[in-house]
């Protein structure tokens, strides 16, 4: 039984994704044991935040808890904050998604503060794209946010994305009580996952696939065959996400 902390639906205007729909995502999830997946709509990340967020909630309503929603917050459009305040209490919403590289705003910028305060007020996590080599979402940005907001539940999406960032991501999560890592990304291997778990602590790592941007079957194969103890694997695949979300997922 797997909870996928990092998913998407929708198309992305940089390359062709063969299967962008929530129908394909859920059908394929069922085939590989994913009982619940948190998605942000790629339209919301890239072009039209409010419309994409509403499409994500609409899609999640069809699937009885098999999909949750990460509401995208675009710090360059503060006028869109009211729709997030409106949607944040929907039981299908898992929290906020930040993508500081697409929005060209450093994660530690004051522009994110209203969204962080909203997340804290509603006790929901923030899943933020984390890419070790960029000025916007580098791991030092996460460190700054976690230091400023030690009570914020902050997930480092992709654990830094590139292998050269994984050990720093593990140190970061080990050093902040409420910082977690997710396993999504095209380059992570089972041995990388083992190092993340041992470096950050098994309670700090969450399974993520990045589907439908990527194919969740690849991520499931990596995580289920990684050199982990059974208890570590259970924590990563399911228990940590369930504890962190404390919201409605299909398995809770």
């Amino acid at each position: 039984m797997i909870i996928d902390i990092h998913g998407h639906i929708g198309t992305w205007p940089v390359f062709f994704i063969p299967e962008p729909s929530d129908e394909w995502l859920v059908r394929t999830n069922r085939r590989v044991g994913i009982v619940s997946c948190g998605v942000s709509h790629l339209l919301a990340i890239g072009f039209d935040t409010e419309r994409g967020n509403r499409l994500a909630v609409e899609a999640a309503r069809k699937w009885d808890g098999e999909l949750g929603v990460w509401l995208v917050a675009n710090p360059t459009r503060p006028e869109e904050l009211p729709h997030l305040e409106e949607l944040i209490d929907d039981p299908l919403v898992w929290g906020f998604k930040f993508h500081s590289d697409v929005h060209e705003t450093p994660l530690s910028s004051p522009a994110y503060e209203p969204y962080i305060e909203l997340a804290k007020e509603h006790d929901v996590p923030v899943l933020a794209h984390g890419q070790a080599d960029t000025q916007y979402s580098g791991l030092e940005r996460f460190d700054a946010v976690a230091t400023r907001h030690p009570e914020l539940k902050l997930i480092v999406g992709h654990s830094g994305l590139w292998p050269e960032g994984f050990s720093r991501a593990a140190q970061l999560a080990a050093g902040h009580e409420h910082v977690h890592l997710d396993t999504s990304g095209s380059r992570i291997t089972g041995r990388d996952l083992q190092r993340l778990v041992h470096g950050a602590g098994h309670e700090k790592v969450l399974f993520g696939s990045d589907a439908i941007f990527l194919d969740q079957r690849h991520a499931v194969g990596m995580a289920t065959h990684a050199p982990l103890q059974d208890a570590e694997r259970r924590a990563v695949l399911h228990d940590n996400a369930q504890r962190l979300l404390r919201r409605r997922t299909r398995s809770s």
Partner: protein
Amino acid sequence: MLIDAHRILGRQPAGQHVFDDEASLLADMDTAGIDEAFVTRSRQLLLDPRDEAHYHDDPPLLPPRIKEMPAFMPGHPGLDDARINALIDGFAILRCATWPGLEPVTASTATLWRRLADAGVAVAVDVERFGWDSLERLVDQFPGLKVLALATGYRNVARIVSLARAAETVWFETATLISAGTVEWLVDQIGAHRLVFGTGAPYRDSAGPAFLLRHAEISDDDRAAIAASNLRRLVEGS
């Protein structure tokens, strides 16, 4: 039967992604459920080919599960006829090594590519390093050459379809075909007979692509073709 067309064995300058010996490589294959692998020694991709002389006493890789896929570097001044002859005589598939700035498909390398095509030797190219433009030029200029494109990237599926339709002698390895539903979509667009299972390990995970192929919504015949028989036909020429 699952055969990995894309594996590297040996030291890396920076440590963490490595199978130093055949035992660790075989253990990883067992974990992923991979029966056989075509393996290139890391030094043949990382060093100047002249450094191969320092390793002349290395034992051969262990068949039958591990099959050697030696590398050659087109355009390297030290690649002489004797080395080319030995590769053509000894192996059915070779891996192309490249250096930044050393264009692999030029007038000066045409004779080499033509010899490989005439001999029926297949060539595996890592598209991340070789480049899409060079791959398309290679396929266009040497239509008889059998090419296995490694690491084409999940962002390039439209380019894969275009190239597959333009040339019958190009196959595509699956390690990086990991955007949602890409394997099924490519089977529909270009046919399962053009896809070859591979992992890119240890730089990439090996269990992920194996699990994906096992759970792909394709026919068992198509799965078996991608898993093993396409590669066998490529190297055995049948």
